[in-house]
C-alpha cells in the first residue's frame, strides 16, 4: 500500500498536537512533510515567558526534538516559509525553493502580532512578542539595561513586562483601557493586578495612548511620546496589542478567508483536501488565541485525515496569567447585565478576590485573583452547565467546602469526579490521568506528561497533577526526588558518580550491588553510563565492559539505517596527503564501498560497509597509517583547523599545527558525551571554533580559549575561558578543562550543559586561576591516556572481538532436512 502524502504549513503548537493524535491512531497512514518559517523544531510557545524571565531555557521547552521527527519519519523543513501552493497540481513550494506534493494539506500558519501603525514603528528596537527570536532580541536588549516600554496590558504584554523586569530592565506598561486585561478581568481584578505590578517596580500607565515612537537620530528607539504630550525614554518598545490570524497565504490560493481562514465543522476549508488548523482559523465566527480549542481542532483533523467524521463544535476558554507569584484565572462571560447575579468574595489582607457570575442558577463566568485553585472546578461547572442552587451559599468558598468541613487540597482533588478537567490546554480529565498512573505504573510528573500530555503545555495545572499523584500513589510519590538515572535506581547521576568515588566501586556489578539497583543487571540506559563513569574514574584498574557499550562503540564504526556501517579514519587536524587519499581510494574499490563523503568534521567517511568487511577495511587503512577517527565515540571526535600561518595571509599563529597537537594528545579519550574541538588562526574564525565544545581563536598576542559552544540540536556561541600566550599553555588549559568535564559531567551531557550546571565562573576559576588544580587535572588526563590511546581498529584486525564480525553459523533448510 502506498502511503498518502500529508503536507503541513507551519510547525506551531496546533499541528504538533495534531501529528501526535495522528500517530497515536495510525503511525503509517501518511508520509508527513512540514514546512516551518521558524528555523527550529516544535516548542512550547506558552513557555516563552519563563524563558524570557530566565526561569527556563529553550531546551526545557522543546516539545518535539529532532529525534522525534527522525523516529516518526517526518520531514521537517526549517526556515522554509511556504510562498506558493498549486491546488491543481497539489504541490507546495517554499521561498527557498523546496517543493513537496500532497494528497492532503493542513494550513497552520498561526497568527501575526499586530503592529500599531505609529510613526517610528519601523525603528530598530521595536519588537513584538511571538516566537523565540523575539525572546532572544528582548534578552539581548535587557543585557544592555535601560528601560523597556511594553505597549499593551493584556496577557502577553504583562508576561513580557514581568520577564523584562526579571532580566533587570526598568519597565513601563502602556495600556489604552482604564484597567489591565479588561477582556479577561473585571475592573476590580484588573485593579488588583495593576497594584501587584506596581509593587514589583513596574510602572503601569492605563488610559495611555501612544502618539509616536521617538528616534535617537540613528534609526534606533529613543522613547515614546504619548498623546498628552509627555515623553518616556526607552531603549526598546515591545508591541503586544493583539494578534491577527495569518490568512494571507490561504487568501492568495483563493480559499475563503474572513478574519481567519474559514472552515466548516470538519475543519476543511473551501477545498476538501485542504484543512486549516490553529490560530489562523475562523470557525463559527470565532478566532481563538489559546491552545485548548486548537488542540480540540487538532483531534478533529487527525480523525478526519484517517477517514473519520469528527466535528468541531467551538470551545469555551479559560485564561491564566503565567507570571510567577501572580495567581489569576478567568473564564466565560462576566459582563454585568440585568438577568445576571453575582457572588463576590474579597479578602483584602490576603489579596484575594473572587467573583462568580450566575445566570439561571448556572455559572457563566468566573474571575479569581490571588487564589485560583478552584478555577478548574468552577470552569467544569460552567462547561457542564451544572445547576448550582443547592450549593449557592458555599459555592464561592470553593470545592473544598462543599462537603461541610474544608478538605485539604489532596482530598479535594481526590473528591473530584473522574470527568473533571485537570489540564485545560490539553483537555485531559482526572480519570484519564488516574488510569494512566495505575495502568502504566507512572511514578512522576514527567511520566504523566509523557503519557497523557497533562501539564505539558502552559504548566499551570502542575500543582493539580502533583496532588493527583499524591492522591493516587500516596507516599510512593516524592515530588522532591532527584531525577533517577533510569528505572533501575532512585539515585541520580550526581549521586552515582559521587558514590562510585567514595565507596571505591570498580565494576558494574559492584555498583549495582552496593547502590542497591532494583534490576538484576541494569538496562540500556544505566549500563553505558556506569561503564563510562568507571572508565573515567579508574582508568588503570577498570576493565571496560564492551557489552555495556552502544553498538557503534562496540564495533568502532557507525551503524547505518540499513544495518551496514560507516568508517571514518582520523585525518589529523583535517590534513591529508596523496598517499592517504590513494589508500582510501583503493579500499573503496576493493570492498565495493557505495558512498564516500566529506564529513562536517573535515575528514572522509566511507559509508555502506558490510559488518563482515570491517576488519578487512581497517587492516588496509591501518597499513596506510590510519587509525580510527572515533566518529562514533562519546569521546574525542574531530579537531577542525584552518590553514593559519602556514598559508593564510591573515593567520596569526600556527592553528593547523596546534590542532594536530591537540588531536594527537587527546585522541582515544572517553568523555561524558562527544567532544569536538577547533582551532582558528585569527578572529575571522574559519574553523568555526566559537560553536565547538572547546575552541581556540588565535590572536596576535596568543590564544583565546573558548568552550561550551553548541551547534547541533541547540545553537550557542562559546564562553571565553581566558587568554594564554604560548602553545604549551593553550594545550595545558584545554586538556585540564577536558579532564574537569570528564570527572564531573553526567553521561550524555555535552560540555555546554555541564557548564550551565556547574557555572562558567567556577570553571574559569579552577582552570584559569587555580594553577595547582589545573595541574592536577592535566596530570590525571595524561595518566588515563596511557590506557586509552590504543587504536581500536588495529586491535580488532589482530583478532579482538572476532565474534562481532562473523555469523555464528549458516543454516540452509535443505541441509537441515
Amino acid at each position, binding site marked *: 500500500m502506498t502511503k498518502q502524502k500529508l503536507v503541513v504549513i507551519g510547525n506551531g503548537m496546533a499541528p504538533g498536537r495534531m501529528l501526535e493524535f495522528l500517530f497515536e491512531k495510525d503511525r503509517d497512514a501518511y508520509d508527513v512533510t512540514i514546512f516551518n518559517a521558524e528555523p527550529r523544531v516544535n516548542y512550547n510557545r506558552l513557555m516563552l515567558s519563563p524563558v524570557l524571565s530566565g526561569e527556563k531555557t529553550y531546551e526545557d521547552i522543546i516539545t518535539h526534538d529532532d529525534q522525534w521527527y*527522525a523516529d516518526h519519519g517526518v520531514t521537517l523543513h526549517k526556515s522554509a516559509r511556504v510562498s506558493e501552493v498549486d491546488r491543481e497540481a497539489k504541490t507546495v513550494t517554499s521561498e527557498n525553493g523546496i517543493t513537496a506534493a500532497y494528497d492532503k494539506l493542513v494550513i497552520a500558519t498561526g497568527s501575526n502580532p499586530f503592529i500599531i501603525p505609529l510613526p517610528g514603528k519601523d525603528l530598530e528596537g521595536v519588537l513584538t512578542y511571538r516566537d523565540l527570536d523575539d525572546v532572544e532580541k528582548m534578552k539581548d536588549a535587557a543585557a544592555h539595561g535601560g528601560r523597556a516600554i511594553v505597549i499593551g496590558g493584556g496577557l502577553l504584554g504583562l508576561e513580557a513586562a514581568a520577564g523584562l523586569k526579571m532580566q533587570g530592565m526598568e519597565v513601563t506598561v502602556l495600556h489604552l483601557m482604564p484597567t489591565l486585561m479588561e477582556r479577561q478581568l473585571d475592573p476590580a481584578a484588573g485593579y488588583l493586578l495593576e497594584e501587584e505590578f506596581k509593587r514589583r517596580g513596574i510602572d503601569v500607565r492605563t488610559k495611555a495612548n501612544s502618539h509616536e515612537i521617538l528616534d535617537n537620530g540613528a534609526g534606533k528607539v529613543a522613547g515614546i511620546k504619548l498623546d498628552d504630550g509627555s515623553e518616556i525614554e526607552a531603549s526598546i518598545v515591545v508591541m503586544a496589542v493583539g494578534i491577527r490570524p495569518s490568512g494571507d497565504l490561504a487568501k492568495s490560493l483563493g480559499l475563503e478567508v474572513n478574519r481567519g481562514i474559514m472552515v466548516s465543522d470538519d475543519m476543511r476549508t473551501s477545498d476538501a483536501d485542504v484543512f486549516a488548523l490553529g490560530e489562523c482559523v475562523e470557525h463559527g465566527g470565532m478566532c481563538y488565541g489559546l491552545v485548548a480549542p486548537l488542540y480540540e481542532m487538532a483531534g478533529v483533523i487527525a480523525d478526519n485525515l484517517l477517514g473519520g467524521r469528527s466535528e468541531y463544535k467551538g470551545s469555551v476558554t479559560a485564561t491564566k496569567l503565567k507570571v510567577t507569584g501572580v495567581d489569576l484565572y478567568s473564564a466565560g462571560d462576566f459582563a454585568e447585565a440585568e438577568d445576571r447575579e453575582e457572588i463576590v468574595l474579597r479578602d483584602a489582607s490576603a489579596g484575594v478576590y473572587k467573583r462568580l457570575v450566575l445566570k439561571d442558577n448556572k455559572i457563566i463566568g468566573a474571575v479569581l485573583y490571588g487564589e485560583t485553585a478552584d478555577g478548574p472546578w468552577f470552569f467544569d461547572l460552567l462547561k457542564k452547565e451544572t445547576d448550582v442552587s443547592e450549593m449557592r451559599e458555599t459555592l464561592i468558598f470553593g470545592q473544598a467546602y462543599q462537603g461541610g468541613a474544608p478538605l485539604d487540597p489532596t482530598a479535594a482533588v481526590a473528591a473530584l469526579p473522574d470527568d473533571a478537567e485537570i489540564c485545560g490546554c490539553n483537555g485531559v480529565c482526572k480519570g484519564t490521568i488516574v488510569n494512566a498512573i495505575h495502568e502504566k505504573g507512572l511514578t512522576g510528573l514527567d511520566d504523566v506528561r509523557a503519557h497523557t500530555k497533562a501539564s505539558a503545555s502552559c504548566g499551570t495545572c502542575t500543582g493539580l497533577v502533583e496532588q493527583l499523584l499524591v492522591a493516587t500513589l500516596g507516599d510512593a510519590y516524592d515530588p522532591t526526588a532527584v531525577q533517577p538515572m533510569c528505572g533501575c535506581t532512585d539515585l541520580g547521576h550526581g549521586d552515582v558518580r559521587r558514590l562510585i568515588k567514595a565507596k571505591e566501586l570498580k565494576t558494574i556489578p559492584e555498583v549495582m550491588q552496593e547502590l542497591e539497583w532494583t534490576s*538484576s*543487571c541494569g538496562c540500556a540506559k544505566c549500563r553505558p553510563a556506569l561503564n563510562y563513569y568507571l572508565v573515567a574514574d579508574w582508568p588503570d584498574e577498570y576493565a571496560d565492559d564492551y*557489552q555495556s557499550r552502544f553498538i557503534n562503540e562496540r564495533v568502532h564504526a557507525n551503524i547505518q539505517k540499513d*544495518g551496514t556501517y560507516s568508517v571514518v579514519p582520523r585525518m589529523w587536524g583535517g590534513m591529508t596527503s596523496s598517499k592517504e587519499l590513494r589508500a582510501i581510494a583503493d579500499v573503496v574499490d576493493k570492498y565495493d564501498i557505495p558512498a564516500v563523503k566529506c564529513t562536517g568534521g573535515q575528514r572522509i567517511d566511507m559509508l555502506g560497509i558490510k559488518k563482515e568487511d570491517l576488519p578487512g577495511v581497517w587492516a588496509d587503512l591501518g597499513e596506510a597509517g590510519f587509525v580510527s577517527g572515533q566518529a562514533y565515540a562519546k569521546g574525542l571526535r574531530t579537531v577542525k583547523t584552518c590553514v593559519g600561518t602556514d598559508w593564510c595571509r591573515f593567520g596569526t599563529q600556527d592553528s593547523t599545527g596546534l590542532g594536530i597537537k591537540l588531536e594527537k594528545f587527546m585522541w582515544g579519550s572517553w568523555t561524558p558525551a562527544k567532544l569536538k574541538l577547533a582551532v582558528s588562526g585569527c578572529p575571522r574564525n574559519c574553523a568555526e571554533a566559537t560553536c565547538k565544545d572547546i575552541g581556540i581563536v588565535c590572536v596576535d598576542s596568543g590564544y583565546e580559549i573558548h568552550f561550551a559552544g553548541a551547534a547541533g540540536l541547540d545553537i550557542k556561541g562559546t564562553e571565553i575561558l581566558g587568554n594564554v600566550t604560548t602553545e604549551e599553555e593553550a594545550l595545558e588549559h584545554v586538556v585540564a578543562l577536558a579532564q574537569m568535564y570528564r570527572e564531573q559531567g553526567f553521561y550524555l551531557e555535552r560540555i555546554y550543559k555541564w557548564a550551565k550546571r556547574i557555572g562558567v565562573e567556577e570553571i574559569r576559576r579552577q582552570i584559569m586561576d587555580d594553577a595547582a588544580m589545573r595541574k592536577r587535572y592535566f596530570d590525571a588526563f595524561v595518566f588515563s591516556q596511557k590506557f586509552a590511546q590504543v587504536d581500536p581498529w588495529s586491535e580488532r584486525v589482530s583478532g579482538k572481538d572476532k*565474534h562481532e564480525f562473523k*555469523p555464528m553459523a549458516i*543454516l540452509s533448510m535443505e541441509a*537441515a532436512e
Partner: protein
Amino acid sequence: MNVVAKDWVAIGDLTDIPRQGARVVKTDAGCIAVFRTVNDEVYALDDRCPHKGGPLSNGIVHGSSVTCPLHNWVFDLATGLAQGADEGAVLTTPAKVEGGKILLAVDALASRAAG
C-alpha cells in the same frame, strides 16, 4: 514440507556468544539473532526490528530484553514483544542449550521459509 516437529539443530557452543551479547545465524528465512543473557539463557529472534528493520543482534542486551540499536525500541527476548509505549513483535524461534551446545528448532524456520 514434512519436517518432524521440534527438529533441533546445533549451531555452535554457548561460549561462542559473549554474555549479554548476540550472534547472527544466516538462514534461508533471513538472519536470526541468537542472544545469550547474563544467566546463560539463549533466545533466537529474527534479526529485523519491526520498526525500521534495525539489526537486533547489534543491540544492548539487558535482563531478558534487547534494545534495538537504531531507535531504541525494547523487545522481550522470550516473547518477541515490544515493551513500553511501542507496539510490535519480532518472530521468535525456539532455542535451547544442551551439553554446552546451542540448538535451534529448525522446523519452525523451515515452515516459515516455505510459507
